[in-house]
């Protein structure tokens, strides 16, 4: 059988299988904010393509999905900026064309060149950021208490606390509260972190993912969400202005997510176009206010498109102060990561 015959046959076979169209589909592995049709549909229409999105709930889950896939299955990856070195080390990411990206427009604090570049090459770009801190219902708690984690973790709020189910930011928050540096955590810090987590758990009514935490707060199932932030309450601000967030005096944790193209992608040009769209002021404004969760756009130019109300909800003008007071997520190596997950599972099981 000649090569052409084989190519024709496989094309015919592919076309016959539902769900596997032959051309121009982009497969992206993302946090849930990218699944908002308002964000993706303009790109699909402009390029006449389909973007398949699969959401995950943490870097571990994303890596698991990549491992279970074949090379070329995925084109675009959204991943926490702090974890970019892990995927770059694994050889998963493709280099991005720096000259086509609006790098100069990003907030300088969130570029995180240490993570996103290697030997002068760019492998991912920060697209959105925010804080893992404390969200609360200001009608139900004393807002002054929320400035001090030890007041939150007291019997006064027993059973009224929910914990965001992602070990990295919440353990980071626990570290900040213990006066530790999130970037320098080692195994020696785990016992203290564990005690802090168990204290949180003893007061908590539930532990839930992004959207479950939002609902817990919105429905009064919980009055405080540890690990929450603008991503938890901003989308609800219009209807429930009493739901808000703050950064305690001791500080909080900053999250940042990056977008990049996978090295094995068969659609690198289209994938790069998608990255460029997401980083454009329009894409950034839509991403910042996406239905799953809000967050600050990494590109300052999005400020020209966001409404005054949206910027107020995102606390655009207070970012300088916030950026100064927040530390980054912990970025453990594989061994410490496994130990941290063990501690997290232990916390869940208490």
């Amino acid at each position: 059988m000649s090569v052409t015959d084989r190519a024709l046959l496989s094309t015919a076979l592919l076309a016959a299988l539902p769900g596997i169209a032959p051309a121009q589909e982009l497969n992206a592995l993302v946090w849930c904010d990218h699944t908002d049709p308002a964000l993706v549909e303009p790109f699909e229409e402009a390029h006449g393509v389909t973007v398949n999105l699969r959401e995950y709930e943490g870097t571990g889950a994303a890596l698991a999905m990549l491992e279970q896939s074949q090379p070329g299955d995925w084109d675009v990856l959204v991943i926490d900026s702090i974890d970019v070195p892990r995927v770059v080390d694994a050889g998963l990411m493709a280099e991005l064309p720096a000259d086509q990206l609006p790098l100069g427009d990003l907030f300088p604090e969130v570029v995180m060149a240490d993570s996103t570049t290697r030997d002068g090459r760019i492998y991912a770009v920060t697209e959105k950021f925010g804080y893992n801190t404390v969200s609360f219902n200001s009608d139900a708690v004393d807002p002054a208490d929320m400035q001090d984690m030890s007041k939150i973790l007291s019997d006064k709020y027993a059973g009224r606390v929910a914990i965001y189910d992602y070990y990295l930011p919440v353990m980071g928050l626990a570290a900040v509260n213990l006066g530790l540096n999130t970037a320098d955590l080692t195994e020696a810090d785990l016992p203290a972190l564990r005690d802090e987590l168990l204290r949180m758990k003893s007061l908590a009514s539930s532990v839930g993912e992004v959207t479950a935490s939002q609902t817990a707060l919105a429905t009064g199932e919980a009055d405080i969400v540890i690990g929450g932030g603008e991503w938890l309450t901003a989308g609800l601000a219009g209807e429930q202005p009493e739901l808000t967030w703050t950064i305690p005096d001791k500080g909080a944790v900053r999250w940042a997510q990056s977008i990049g193209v996978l090295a094995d992608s068969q659609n690198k040009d289209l994938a790069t176009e998608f990255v460029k769209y997401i980083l454009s002021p329009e894409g950034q404004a839509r991403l910042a206010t996406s239905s799953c969760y809000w967050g600050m756009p990494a590109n300052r130019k999005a400020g020209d498109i966001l409404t005054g109300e949206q910027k107020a909800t995102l606390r655009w003008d207070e970012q300088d102060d916030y950026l100064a007071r927040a530390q980054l997520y912990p970025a453990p190596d594989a061994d410490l990561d496994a130990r941290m997950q063990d501690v997290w599972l232990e916390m869940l099981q208490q």
Partner: protein
Amino acid sequence: MSDTGRGWGFVAPALLWTVGLFVVPFAVMAAMSLARLEGRDLVWGVDWGNYAQLAKPQIARAVLVSLEITLTVTAVSVLLAYPLAAIIAFRVPPRWQRLALLLAVLPFWTSYVVRSYSWLLVLSKQGVVNQALLGLGLVAEPLTLANTRFATVTGFVHFFTMLLTLTIYANLMQLPRNYARAAQDLGANGWQTFRHVILPLTLPGVVTGAFLTFVLCIGDYVTPQILGGNNELSLPQVIMVQLGRRADFPLASALSIVLMGLVMLAYLLCARWLRLDRV
């Protein structure tokens, strides 16, 4: 072609399907349970380390949580379903029995995932039960019902009470009516008739239903995940954590084998009364 040869021809497709897509994957999973992860690389071999993880408190607790929940659910469901099936079989006039039974299993026809979700509507802080209690002035503060083991057990009991009502009703209807009448003629009162005649005759059916409940309940991921609020994790939830967050297939496989071991244990314990061919 010989008779036997033709017979093989008929059985072969189903047999190949089951062996190829169940027996072989199961064997691969068993082999996987003895492999281990080094960093992110899979190392095949015979390593009992995954099973040794059962000694870790967070894993051991998952086994315990699963067993406690499943045994509670099985016992409560049987205790709730038996009287319900008996009332439908003996008190409800025959012409209404079909309708009565249909009503008793109506929620079967909602989607399985939705059924657990609908309990959230009932049990959450703003849910039906709490609003009713608050409205009646019976409680001052809403009770914490959702996101607890109580919620998980309630969701399970709801489903399995329906299932067991069906199986026990079928059993009761197969009883020859004159047995009970004979016992009464011999002077037995209602309780004695039940204790010495009806219960022993329906026991195999009850045990079969209870075993089915045990198997389905202990392997379920959805109900505790929706209703338990992550306050404690059952064995299937811990398996899914290993799969979803860590891609630790070896440990997930080992824990699945443990899960199957628990089912086998239950099977051996009630094998005496089981009539699986009559389900």
